[in-house]
């Protein structure tokens, strides 16, 4: 197991190197000029050139790359070309709202979706199953911003239960955090509940047909134990995969939800950086996201051994 983990961690190095080179070159080939954003509409070509020089953008491409990689190896992601703020500081400010929202969303999704999927499988081809599947189709089909606006209209403006927008860190009061995070999390959870519930149902249907389930029932084991101890645990591997992938997607940025609920997360940071051609921020974000994907995939793979002891690395 330890050898496997080390091998997986070492595999990150070539992955990240390829990502770094690819992102660096791709960005430089994209039309756009951060100096034009900084200088504004009235700048003359000469002023633009002077700003480009001061930002180091007039240097040959290979020199820019070497400078960037040199800083990267020291753990320095560089400085934003637009705001002059260290990229690590910017990511540090914006990553926590995203992580916290992602965790709460996944917790809510699992708490709702897994029992729903189990129920749907248990009551296969009954009205319960149809209701769960109908909800899943709706969850996939309705655009997330529509759900967000509906929640805001109903729970914030209509009933006045929650604030319309904004984000408060849990450290400043868990109640305040929850009151602002609940609607965006429920909005995001709508999709993930649909996804996880469908996956749970499919996996459970497969497992519920197995001989050992029939044996357990024949032995008089309570149905709830059959479902959740015997069946669900054996159906857990694909469910964990979908949960892990979902979590990685959430961390990667949920721009629309962040915009609708005004959450200063990394999704918006990335989009803003792309629109402004803020190269160091885009590079830092893509590296971070790639690293997180690799890490989460590793965690998912390791979790398989917990649910299915037959799996060995």
């Amino acid at each position, binding site marked *: 197991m330890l050898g496997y983990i080390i091998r997986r961690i070492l595999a990150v190095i070539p992955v990240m190197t390829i990502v770094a080179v690819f992102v660096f070159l791709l960005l430089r080939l994209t039309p756009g000029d951060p100096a*034009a954003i900084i200088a504004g*509409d009235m700048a003359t070509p000469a002023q633009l050139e002077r700003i480009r020089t001061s930002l180091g953008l007039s240097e040959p491409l290979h020199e820019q790359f070497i400078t960037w990689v040199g800083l990267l190896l020291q753990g320095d992601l560089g400085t934003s070309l637009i*705001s002059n703020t260290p990229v690590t500081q910017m990511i540090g400010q*914006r990553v926590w709202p995203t992580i916290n929202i992602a965790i709460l969303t996944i*917790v809510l999704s699992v708490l709702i979706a897994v029992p729903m999927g189990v129920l749907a499988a248990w009551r296969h081809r009954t009205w319960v199953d149809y209701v769960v599947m109908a909800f899943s189709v709706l969850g996939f089909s309705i655009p997330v911003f529509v759900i967000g606006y509906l929640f*805001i209209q109903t729970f914030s403006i209509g009933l006045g239960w929650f604030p319309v927008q904004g984000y408060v860190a849990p450290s*400043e009061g868990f109640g305040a955090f929850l009151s602002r995070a609940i609607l965006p999390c429920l909005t995001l959870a709508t999709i993930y509940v649909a996804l996880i519930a469908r996956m749970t149902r499919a996996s459970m249907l497969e497992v519920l047909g197995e001989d050992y389930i029939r044996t357990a029932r024949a032995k008089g084991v309570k149905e709830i134990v059959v479902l959740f101890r015997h069946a669900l645990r054996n159906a857990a591997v694909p469910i964990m995969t979908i949960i892990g992938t979902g979590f990685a997607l959430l961390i990667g940025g949920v721009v629309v939800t962040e915009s609708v609920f005004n959450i200063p997360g990394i999704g918006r940071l990335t989009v803003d950086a792309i629109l402004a051609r803020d190269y160091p921020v885009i590079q830092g974000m893509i590296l971070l996201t790639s690293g997180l994907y690799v890490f989460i995939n590793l965690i998912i793979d390791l979790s398989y051994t*917990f649910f299915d002891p037959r799996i060995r690395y």
Partner: protein
Amino acid sequence: MLRIQERLFRCTSLGRGMALGLLAGAALMTGSSLATTPAGAEGKTVTAVMHSGLRVLDPIITTAHITRNHGYMIYDVLVAVDENFEPQPQMADWTISDDNLVYTFTLRDGLTFHDGNPVTAADAVASLKRWGKRDSGGQLLFDVTESLEAKDDKTLVWTLKSPFPALLEIVGKQSAVPPFIMPERVASGSADEAITDYTGSGPFVFVEEEYQPGVSVTYRKFEDYVPREEPANWMAGGKNVKVDQVKWVTMPDAQTAINALMSGEIDYIEQVQIDLLPILETSENVTVETRDELGYQTIGRMNFKYPPFDDVKIRQAAMMALSQENVLGTLIGNPDYYTICGAIFGCGTPLADDSGSGTLTSGGDIEGAKKLLEEAGYDGTPVVLMQPTDVVSLTAQPVVAAQALREAGFNVDMQPMDWQTLVTRRASQAKPSEGGWNMFFTNWMVPEINSPLISPMLNGRGDDAWFGWPEDDEIEVLRAEFIAADTLDKQKEVAVRIQEHTLENVLYIPLGQYASPQARSNKLTGMIPSPVPVFWNVEKAD
């Protein structure tokens, strides 16, 4: 149901694993320090949603309006303009020598930087010199400057080589780059590198530790600021701060901002999308108003270097095809918020005159444009028209213009792109078929184009001119005449000739003026009309 779930999760390893792991994770994350705190959390706070996020903190290096607005929060200026466009003393009074060559400014008492040091003439000199390297009006002024020196701590002397009657107007300009006064140690740096020390001289202090680029910025009342005694008037007068903090937050979604204002979570929206106004009008707690009566001028600019717009007749044909009504009707929709205006210096300004605007303000003349195009011998050369797709205030103009130009007989190649691509491409002097362009559109705040001294489109110095690069000696002669004009009447006389020349040669196409409504909570009072949203004089009820 909840109890059932609790039981289910208690008895399964999956539930236990997931719930414990994730909840533990959530608990670990509580150390995060980032927050968009609720309004009113720290003293009396005004929470405002501005038109864009603040990302560049140096108001001299950029012409971005949000950075200029930031500049007005934390810096003061020597001279400011009132609602009659008259320069008024702000940090300094002045005297002018009889030969109009020497301006002596005297700083008023009580001026202090946010670090506690007094504002001196040396600080002002350094700030003006740095500004003069960046601002187009400042560059004109420094072209005729013999010397600018601090005579003592309170006095600075500006000596000119030749009279420059518009000196006070230029030093008092509020857009796009006003000469903000910074400490000498800050202002003595390069004009091409952004400052990193934000010690201000104005009524608010920038709270650096709470700043999140593009997300939020907090300004605290500067307790030692001494306002002028005159009442606030446009950008001039006393800057009395009556709240503890002003917080600017960025909301990328216009609907969210409106919801937040209606629910009382924020106090002010700087620019409201006009199609969303009916929602706000249903709220009793919100007031919609236009505090910047001049608003914006939307314009089209052609590339003078390449066919077909290197031919003045073809430029005239294009202008003839366009109708301000069509453009503004599509862009804004509600006639309450736009004005058909043929004045290149903007309607409502001292130099406003609509000579030569002809068909532009009377619905366009497609038939006339066809005829003119035929006379010019247009050979069907494609017109590469750049259309930004991600700036709401600029998406309609290219579409309307393309339709009108096609009807007139132009072969239009409209190319959609994001704004960043557009600003890069418009700087290219390559042929339109090789990555260049023929026409684009943009918007200016009227105070940015209300004088030939500052309007970038009226520069006729070829490759040194603004994008489009017209070579026009006559406009340069006219601008020199304007600089020499020492009375408003003389300036107006020259301005009319500039107006006629500009439209006859189609240096650019003014496509009308529009206002940008703002919305505020009724708890906010005392907001003054001004071309820049300012937060002094504002009171907030409990």
